[in-house]
């Protein structure tokens, strides 16, 4: 296109139309190329010859208007909707009437999930081969953590959820929160730094919390650097990222995975009420146990004293029995038993007469028989 200037007072002056046309033809010399971005503000109507949308840079939000002939767009049958990531093949174009820059699209390819998934799958296999996800690497969480490190975005919801559940379940819990970027280009470095800092500051367990999000939103949590940082962390890591159905790779490298913030809280702190109850039970048992042990000692002592007090009487009785026994045996030896059979003992005074020669005629003697004594006089 020819851009003609008019000479006015020695100065070359262009009409707006000529200027726009000139820029447009200059832009037209730029090559056709591929551009990646997210589809937003997609506008398509049957009565329009073209389809319009804005291609947005997912990282810093830079925008580029795109136009594509409706026929070509429809033929692709992509069924695109806002938020999808695409590769657009096209060239820059200036809508001369309004000096508006746009990309004239020749074709569009859906990009993202499929390609990302494949890359993730490869990374997952590599890390698994290295043993990063092995069960043998999993560590037990401390039962009573001194300091809980919490890595979370400042998106309030996830952070508040975890904090609320932790403090409700266990009010004495100490938590050190590291706010990080949880999505976008800075997220990965920021998460890795936070993990290192928290363990350095004495956290004995670290919770990685991130609310649900799109597949792309959660990508930093599958980034190799983050996954390795989780695996290499000095203290156990609980991964509470996304929802139940999401499985970012950091879940696999973490020591425990929690599907919700509540579950994460349950994992990292004990139940206060239960603990309190157990403690009170311990104290009650202590008192009861001590009482019972003391009672047993007292009982034993009482029993011993009883035996002590009964001991002298018992000993006396035993002696008496022995005496009686001896006495009985003595009875069997007594001469009275012999007298019973009809024998008699003859005495002169105290002297027992053992021979006839001992007795003189007319002597008075006494005869002892079983039931008594009577006097006799010896004959000639």
């Amino acid at each position, binding site marked *: 296109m020819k851009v003609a200037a008019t000479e006015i007072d020695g100065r070359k002056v262009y009409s707006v139309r000529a200027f726009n046309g000139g820029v447009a033809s200059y832009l037209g010399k730029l090559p056709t190329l591929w551009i990646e971005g997210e589809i937003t503000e997609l506008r398509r109507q049957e009565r329009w010859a073209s389809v319009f949308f804005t291609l947005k840079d997912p990282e810093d939000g830079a925008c580029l208007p795109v136009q594509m002939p409706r026929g070509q767009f429809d033929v692709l049958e992509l069924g695109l909707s806002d938020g999808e990531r695409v590769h657009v093949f096209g060239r820059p174009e200036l809508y001369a009437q309004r000096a508006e820059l746009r990309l004239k699209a020749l074709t569009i390819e859906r990009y993202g999930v499929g390609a990302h998934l494949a890359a993730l799958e490869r990374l997952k296999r590599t890390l698994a081969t290295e043993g990063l996800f092995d069960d043998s690497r999993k560590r037990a969480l401390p039962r009573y953590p001194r300091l809980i490190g919490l890595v979370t975005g400042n998106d309030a919801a996830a952070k508040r959820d975890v904090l609320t559940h932790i403090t409700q379940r266990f009010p004495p819990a100490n938590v050190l929160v590291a706010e990080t970027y949880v999505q976008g280009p800075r997220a990965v470095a920021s998460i890795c730094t936070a993990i290192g800092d928290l363990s350095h500051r004495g956290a004995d367990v670290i919770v990685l919390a991130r609310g649900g999000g799109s597949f792309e939103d959660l990508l930093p949590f599958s980034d190799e650097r983050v996954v390795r940082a989780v695996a290499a962390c000095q203290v156990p890591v609980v991964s509470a990222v996304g929802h139940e159905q999401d499985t970012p790779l950091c879940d696999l490298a973490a020591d425990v995975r929690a599907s919700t913030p509540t579950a994460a809280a349950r994992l990292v702190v004990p139940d206060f009420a239960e603990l309190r109850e157990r403690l009170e039970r*311990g104290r009650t048992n202590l008192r009861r146990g001590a009482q019972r042990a003391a009672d047993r000692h007292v009982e034993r002592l009482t029993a011993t004293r009883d035996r002590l007090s009964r001991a002298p009487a018992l000993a006396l009785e035993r002696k008496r029995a022995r005496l009686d026994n001896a006495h009985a045996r003595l009875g069997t030896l007594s001469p009275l038993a012999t007298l019973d059979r009809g024998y008699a003992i003859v005495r002169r005074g105290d002297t027992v007469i053992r021979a006839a020669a001992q007795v003189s005629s007319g002597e008075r003697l006494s005869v002892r028989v079983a039931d008594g004594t009577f006097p006799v006089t010896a004959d000639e």
Partner: protein
Amino acid sequence: MSEPTFEEAQRELESIVERLERGDAGIDELTELWERGEELYRICAAKLDGVRGKIEELARSGDTPPESG
């Protein structure tokens, strides 16, 4: 003897209770065990009730804060 952790104190308390219940503690030890048990109870209770947890924010090492949302 340094102050035991909550977990250590609780374990010791429970083992004292077990001993008392088994009944093999001598009379001289009894008071000692009971007093130790009470002390452990107080230590545990103080750890649970006395201390409110702290929630601190780690200063970010990054440059600008991320926009919320």
